[in-house]
């Protein structure tokens, strides 16, 4: 294929993918500001901000839900990355007996059904008095997020050249300084991706939050599902947009900010 037609093909592919990727947001946006957009109208004729103002009002209970989602995801992200760092380092740089078992136990929560993880976390939180609490929900979100963070950070640490650290230490740098000036810059991209994943996973949790939070802790996924039954299309669309957009944007910003080779 010659250069010109290849360029055309490349444009076509990018455009098609762009349309497929961005159309959902366009549809949600239009639906959220449409008034009475029902069958058979392909395009809405009237527009209103009713759905959005309802979302922002205290009557809908959406704002506390957003606050919970953001707060929980934020704390889960920080905790997950912090806890995963030492574990990933040990797993990446050392060989020891039982490593396979630990890797297996790390992968298992990721591959297990969310119902199993959620009901298990629920049973556990009941036993230790964490049920219906923010702390319990945060702790239960750590189960699906930490394995991902550890696995991602293992990749970063595997690529790390410990010689630089040794050199810095032999030159008299404190462990903290070594981390700040040698280790951290090297693993920062991996940390960013791990953080993005942790945030996304916590943000999207449904069953876990429902079971452990007992319905008392409302997050966006829970609110979205309960609103679906209201059959108010505009409000559902607005809520879906509120749920989907931050997740996509945060992920892309963090992952894109630290783009390295892939």
């Amino acid at each position: 294929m010659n250069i010109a037609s290849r360029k055309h093909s490349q444009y076509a592919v990018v455009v098609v993918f762009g349309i497929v990727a961005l159309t959902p947001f366009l549809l949600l946006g239009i639906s959220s500001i449409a008034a009475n957009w029902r069958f058979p109208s392909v395009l809405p004729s009237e527009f209103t901000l009713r759905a959005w103002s309802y979302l922002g009002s205290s009557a809908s209970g959406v704002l506390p839900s957003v606050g919970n989602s953001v707060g929980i995801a934020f704390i889960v992200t920080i905790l997950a990355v912090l806890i995963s760092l030492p574990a990933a380092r040990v797993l990446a740089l050392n060989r020891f007996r039982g490593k396979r078992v630990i890797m297996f136990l790390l992968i298992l929560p990721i591959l297990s059904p969310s119902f199993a993880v959620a009901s298990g976390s629920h049973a556990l939180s009941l036993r230790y008095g964490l049920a219906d609490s923010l702390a319990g929900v945060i702790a239960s979100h750590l189960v699906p997020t930490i394995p991902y963070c550890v696995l991602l950070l293992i990749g970063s640490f595997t690529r790390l050249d410990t010689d630089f650290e040794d050199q810095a230490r032999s030159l008299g740098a404190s462990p903290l300084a070594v981390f700040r000036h040698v280790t951290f810059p090297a693993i920062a991209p991996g940390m960013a991706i791990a953080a993005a994943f942790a945030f996304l996973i916590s943000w999207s949790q449904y069953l876990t939050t429902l079971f452990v939070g007992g319905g008392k802790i409302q997050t966006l996924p829970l609110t979205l599902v309960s609103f679906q039954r209201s059959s108010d299309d505009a409000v559902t669309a607005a809520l879906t947009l509120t749920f989907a957009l931050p997740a996509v944007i945060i992920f892309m910003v963090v992952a894109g900010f630290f783009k390295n080779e892939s």
Partner: protein
Amino acid sequence: MVKFKKITLLFPAAFVVLGFFLGGLILSAANSLPSPTYARMFADPEVRAAFVFTLSLTALATALSALCGTATALLLHNLARGSYILRTFLQIPLSMPHLAAAFILLSLIAPSGLISRLFVSVPEDFPILVGDAFGIGILMAYVLKETPFIATVVLATLARTGDELDSVAKNLGASRWQRFRHVTLPIIAPATLFSSLFVFAYVFGAFEIPYILGRQYPTVLAIVANRKFAATDLGERPEAFAIAVAMTIVAAVLAWFFLRLGQKQGESEKPLLF
């Protein structure tokens, strides 16, 4: 002394994951033990139907996503390599929460949805794609969501390997098909397998998409388990835990395969994950 230090470093992560997950699992198993729960579960027609439904849905969704994902990766690698915009476009469906994807698809393919409005005059004329007995809508949602995932993983592998092998083969006179079968395929096969295993495990246990796009019967195991868990008849709860334990055993088997594949990859080159 060094060994002790290593374990201490692993301890917080291990404690959280092991503690919460395994502890929860053990408690679930304990909760599932009163009375012959497992015998009851295996004989329960609802569970059996759900198992068949879940397995076929998962197998089909994984196969289709693997096919489309690999094909997409090859297409993108050949036509639009290194395109930053394209990578960004691929990241969007990846980071889209499954629940949101379900709602978006619902508004598109429901009988009174957008696509139906383009083609028929009354909602009843549009084929039933959501809440149907075959889970077509559910299947569509999974394929749309997991194809970009598999494509991304395979694309990463393709990007890592250079063109040298392919050029050499071309110079030696190999045809397109020969190059694909003997050069490209062995390179992407592990990546496809790896990501397909992951998709299989996820879809098998997933709850949200069938919940929004499916119906009460037949449905997936996760929803049956949830229903028994929340049932007013508390006698059904042990069975819910039994289903959870059984599904986790399936996940454990898949995890073992996953680990084996990952180790084979790790021995030959850099870790597959990013």
